[in-house]
């Protein structure tokens, strides 16, 4: 009986291990074959004016918190509407995933840009973390209380990061800037 339990558990363990390895192998293979342009095409269109409105409600253009009394005037429901609800959050999360992939692309092919690629990756992961908390809160019905903590912070981080990516593209004179602006 003990031997049968052992064999069953070992088979289950191996099947899980191989399944997980295969899943991530396919994911990594897809990612490794991607081109810079192909990755940019994966970005989902987000209304940048609305993102900017949410971000500028909290911080000034410089990135510093706004000292005036009008700061943080948007309440949670207004931010929720501007973001486009859960769908908007998911778009934000997917775009962060693409930014992580862009960082991986830089790391893979341009080792001299390692530091900045790692920084981009960390920022994108930070936003993913905030959005993940919000989605979790939405599923457990605690969205209202968590929204103020995570949503605006995620949007502000996203806003500044994408703005810098756009500036970089603009200055480098890369083709497809208009497409990228539309997507980000």
């Amino acid at each position: 009986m003990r031997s049968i339990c052992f064999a069953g558990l070992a088979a289950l363990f191996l099947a899980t291990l191989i399944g997980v390895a295969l899943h991530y192998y396919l994911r990594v293979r897809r990612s490794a074959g991607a081109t810079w342009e192909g990755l940019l095409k994966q970005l989902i269109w987000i209304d940048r004016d609305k993102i900017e409105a949410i971000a500028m409600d909290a911080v000034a253009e410089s990135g510093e918190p706004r000292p005036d009394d009008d700061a943080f005037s948007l309440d949670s429901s207004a931010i929720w509407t501007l973001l486009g609800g859960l769908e908007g959050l998911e778009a934000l999360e997917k775009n962060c995933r693409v930014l992580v992939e862009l960082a991986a692309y830089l790391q893979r092919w341009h080792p001299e840009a390692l530091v900045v690629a790692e920084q981009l990756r960390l920022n994108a992961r930070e936003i993913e973390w905030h959005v993940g908390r919000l989605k979790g809160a939405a599923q457990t019905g605690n969205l209202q209380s968590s929204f103020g903590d995570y949503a605006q912070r995620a949007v502000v981080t996203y806003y500044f990061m994408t703005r810098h990516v756009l500036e970089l593209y603009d200055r480098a004179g890369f083709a497809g800037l208009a497409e990228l602006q539309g997507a980000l």
Partner: protein
Amino acid sequence: MQITVFDRFLWVTGFFGHILLLLVLFRRGLARSFTMFTTLIAFSVARTIILYSVYRSLPADYVNAFWYLAVPYDALWFLVLFEVAMHVFRPTGVWPRDVWKSFIGIACVSAIVPLPLTWLAVPSTATLARVVVVRGTFFCAVLMSELFVGMFALSATEGLPWKTHVARIAQGLGAYSVVCVVTQAISDYFGNEPHVYAVLGRLGNAVYVVCEGYWIVMLWQEAPAPRELPESMLTQIYALQRQVEDDLISIRDWRRS
């Protein structure tokens, strides 16, 4: 256990394969980047020489010598795994906080999962020392395979690519770890019956020789050359990094009142 011609063939092939692999590691300048892996291969050469000498001069002590040498050998495998992790997860030379936490989490979970499996494995060996060694070896094989898969999953999630040579070393080690789990699980299931144990041992050794061949070929090849980044873009990328860093410092500090 009787040593067959096939065993001798695997022994000789494995031994010369290790020497060839060492030459490749030094010739390609990889020994410095992969110190632990190079140490593991050098130790394997030394282990083969010691075991062969013991087998020729003191055959009765061969089994004991084999198990004694298994302890530092297994320890080196874990060090190689950590070396691979450092190559993958510390692209800038420091552990990112989120990655370090996840890595420790994976290591802790991976250490717990093999416990019930190891407890259920019933090696029908004569002495307590052998029971400990057989169970310990099985535990290490399960843990090692989990850690490789866990690291692979973590790197995919975090968006950290595997550089060519790191990936090749890890693929060989990971594949061999999984084969070790399979062979040891089958062996334990049959109560470590000597005939089954010997056949599965040969299978494991044969797979290891294949892995050696894979490493020799793959590590001899140059990694793909990086694509050229225009100087202007490089400067701008560094400027971007500084800007983003400044922004994040201020964003992390503010709180919605």
